[in-house]
């Protein structure tokens, strides 16, 4: 399976996302923001960072880039798309996902090992988890507070489209402790925490077992791979 990772000017975790794809035994393909070309990939990851310096609004300029025209079209055809942090912001800015992300409630950037509950396993990116499973994924953002109108929140909750929820501590003031959501079809998932930083023992979050041993993030990428193989 070939998974594309888009690099925008100001992307930071693009190489990390490529590494995660590799660790999941898929083939990473570097995609460029200025191209109208998905190079025939089977799925796309929109990585974290500060695309275009986060000018205007986080993800707003990236959402209008050449590559995103293709990503939006592919998403509508059912291609698995994962937006991580800044990528999640792009997904809301391009209306593939509802709502938006605002400045953290505390006002400052936060980096921490975050406990999450997997609320939905019916998406392409979470099918390998069991429902209600608790996982640890690094989180690092300045504008990660999820916000939406009451109707949208009710719909997301009612349709089981809240995919990840913060447990124990809500690091950014997100409504309903929402850490990640999906579209109706379940092929597009956006989340603020960074699964690509929990893929390799020694470089992931601390767990109860050992320091930096957390690899829960790898299963998002494996899920996409397994979903593809199943089809």
């Amino acid at each position: 399976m070939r998974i594309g990772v888009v690099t925008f000017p100001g992307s930071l975790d693009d190489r990390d996302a490529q590494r995660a794809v590799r660790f999941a035994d898929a083939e990473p393909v570097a995609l460029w923001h200025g191209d109208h070309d998905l190079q025939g990939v089977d799925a796309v990851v929109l990585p974290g960072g500060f695309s275009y310096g986060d000018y205007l609004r986080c993800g707003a300029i990236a959402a209008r880039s050449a590559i995103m025209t293709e990503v939006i079209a592919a998403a509508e055809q059912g291609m698995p798309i994962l937006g991580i942090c800044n990528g999640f912001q792009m997904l809301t800015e391009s209306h593939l996902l509802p709502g938006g992300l605002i400045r953290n409630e505390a006002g400052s950037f936060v980096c921490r090992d975050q406990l999450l509950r997997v609320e939905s396993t019916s998406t392409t990116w979470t099918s390998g988890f069991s429902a209600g499973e608790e996982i640890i994924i690094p989180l690092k953002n300045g504008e990660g507070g999820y916000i939406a109108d009451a109707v949208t929140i009710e719909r997301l909750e009612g349709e089981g489209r809240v995919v990840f929820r913060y447990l124990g501590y809500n690091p950014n003031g997100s409504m309903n402790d929402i850490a990640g959501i999906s579209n109706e079809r379940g092929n597009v998932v956006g989340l603020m925490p960074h699964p690509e930083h929990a893929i390799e023992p020694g470089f992931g979050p601390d767990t109860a077992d050992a320091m930096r041993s957390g690899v829960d993030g790898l299963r998002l990428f494996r899920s996409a791979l397994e979903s593809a193989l199943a089809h």
Partner: protein
Amino acid sequence: MTTSPVESSPADAAQIDMPFVDGPLVDTVERAATNPEREQPYAALGLKEDEYLKIREILGRRPTSGELAMYSVMWSEHCSYKSSKVWLRQFGQKVTPEMTKNLMVGMGENAGVIDVGEGWAVTFKIESHNHPSYIEPFQGAATGVGGIVRDIISMGARPVAVMDALRFGAIDSPDTARVVHGVVSGISFYANCLGLPNIGGETYFDSVYQANPLVNALAVGVLRHEDLHLANARGVGNKVVLFGARTGGDGIGGASILASDSFSASGPTKRPAVQVGDPFAEKVLIECCLELFRDDLVEGIQDLGAAGISCATSELASNGDGGMAVDLDRVLLRDPSLTAEEILMSESQERMMAIVRPEKLDAFMAVVGKWEVETSVLGEVTDTGRLIITWRGETIVDVDPRTVAVDGPVYDRPIAYPTWIDELNADSASGLARPTAGEELAAQVQALAASANLSDKSWITAQYDRYVMGNTALSYPDDGGMVRVDEESGLGFAVATDANGRYCYLDPYQGAQLALAEAYRNVAVTGATPVAVSDCLNFGSPENPEVMWQFSKSVEGLADGCLELGIPVTGGNVSFYNQTGNVPIHPTPVVGVLGVIDDVARRVPSGWQDEGHNIYLLGITSLELDGSAWAGLVHGHLGGRPPAVDLQREKELAGLLNGGTKEALIGSAHDLADGGLAQALVESALRFGIGARIFLDELCERDGIDLATALFSESTGRVIVSVPREDDVRFVGLCEARRYPVQRIGVTDGLPDAAPSLNLQGMFDISLADLRAGWSGTLPTHFA
């Protein structure tokens, strides 16, 4: 210009479009010759009269205003090291062939480069941004990060980590919160946005830094040997290319005086003296530069920092074939009203200057075009030996670039043994009341853990990204930061920074060596082998002979110490004039030590990870409380002589730790420094929430000390390690074979059926929950 364009005649309008052509404002080389006695504002630009006369002597005429601008910034203390040079030479002199065998680039370039094996090299440097960070903490700290990162890129390296050594005023002073918030969010903003993991550093509060915070930023980069680049302009006919952000009026210190004193009234007035950073522009510049290096499109490269184009052109030319011709009209401007002098002096951020072969220019332009980085060819390399800068068709600078960049003034400033220091040294802390009762000992252990300087710094580090790039093997709160360089082999580096201004105040020679010893030890405990040093020397005014004495002693101590440890100083920076009125800061030489580890998988954390380990104290504890955190906190005392330092012992200790980690005998290792054994035990316990039972009777008996001394003394050459029980015999055997003092002082088993605690047998039992509440509560209480 007094006439407004609306009312003016066509002739006037033409003058407004090019207001400098006929006015007295363009000071050309020709005019300097024909109008030799024109008064020049050299004093306002910070030049002394004899320095100004020297410039006239070099040129054989008065300088043009552009030349004066260049000389004034390049001969400033900051750029020329004129007061420190005579002392800094020791770093180059006190070396052995052994010390330099892995040194690819030493002092004098943008940053030192060390061969770390497997075809990889690591470059690192620490630099100050103190004064801007007091005036405008956010931008001051942000651009401090930006500047040091560009130094790293200039070497051909990919920046991979940053670290900060910060010193603020008293934690409870009203102005401290302003500076702390600004500095921390500035670093957070800039480094996070660059995608560089922040892997540690230090934060220290003391009223001596109240109006003089120290913001020292360290950056590390990695490169393949063949990617090494240097800042020189070689090859006649090669193009001089300026790329990155446009040049604006920010960061012009002296130039604002220049502009308002003698130049255009219609030009920009008072510019902000602190630069403004755009990390997005820098991130794009990093990726763009790395692509240029990859495609071999650059012959020489230099970043633009202090003194901007003045510095870049004169340094590149001096280090190369010696000549350069530059047309200043080609500089892309953010503000078209800038004068030539201001363009020369602007410190606008996120700019680089490259030397490019003409036949590679198209390929170069294609890469910068891909990254949408604005670029302009300013001129070319010549063999005339002159740096010639033209503006609006006339020559405004014609100098030998070496006289600007290399052969600046050098001062052997007077030094004086401080009148107060004997009395200070006589006032030892050893006579201060030391507790003996368990309750009192426990209270002091907890008070130290919750004190400003020993408390948890995660309120700060949680604002920094430590994950990005996916190679961080250790970061705060471990003693040193560690980053993987090679994903296949696991090759990596570790870095730590340390300084203790209190020790240096008592004895600057020994204090500098103590900082070196601590940073060295902090690298060694991670399992890495220390290989190189970068230093940031923060002092008061060099015009004060007592400060100059402190400086000379610190440099001497550091140079002697590096020689003894066998690791070279590869670069760094000097920051003088850190004082308020006549009161200088404590001398604060911050020492960064870089180590290499063959496989980061064998890194050792600084806290206990598992129950059932034995805890050993390596080294000897003596009654050494002078200058200690304990004396400061409990008695408000600062006097006496700092702890003895034995660098041979430090080397042996590092060797022992290296052996122990290679044989996988060590579960954790924590260096003993500020707060002594007590603080090391607290931090080891809180790292992963594993308690311990400690017994110190044998130690006290062996070393002839009381319990308070065992807990709070800051004797050097000491580390606590935890060792799995099954490795006990081997570990003790290793220590004995290397003749390093070793004493078992406890176990990481808690008391049965009790919450984890730090238990000192027969004396106290403090629950980790209580300990953590105090330790982690201090910073949020003051700043959250």
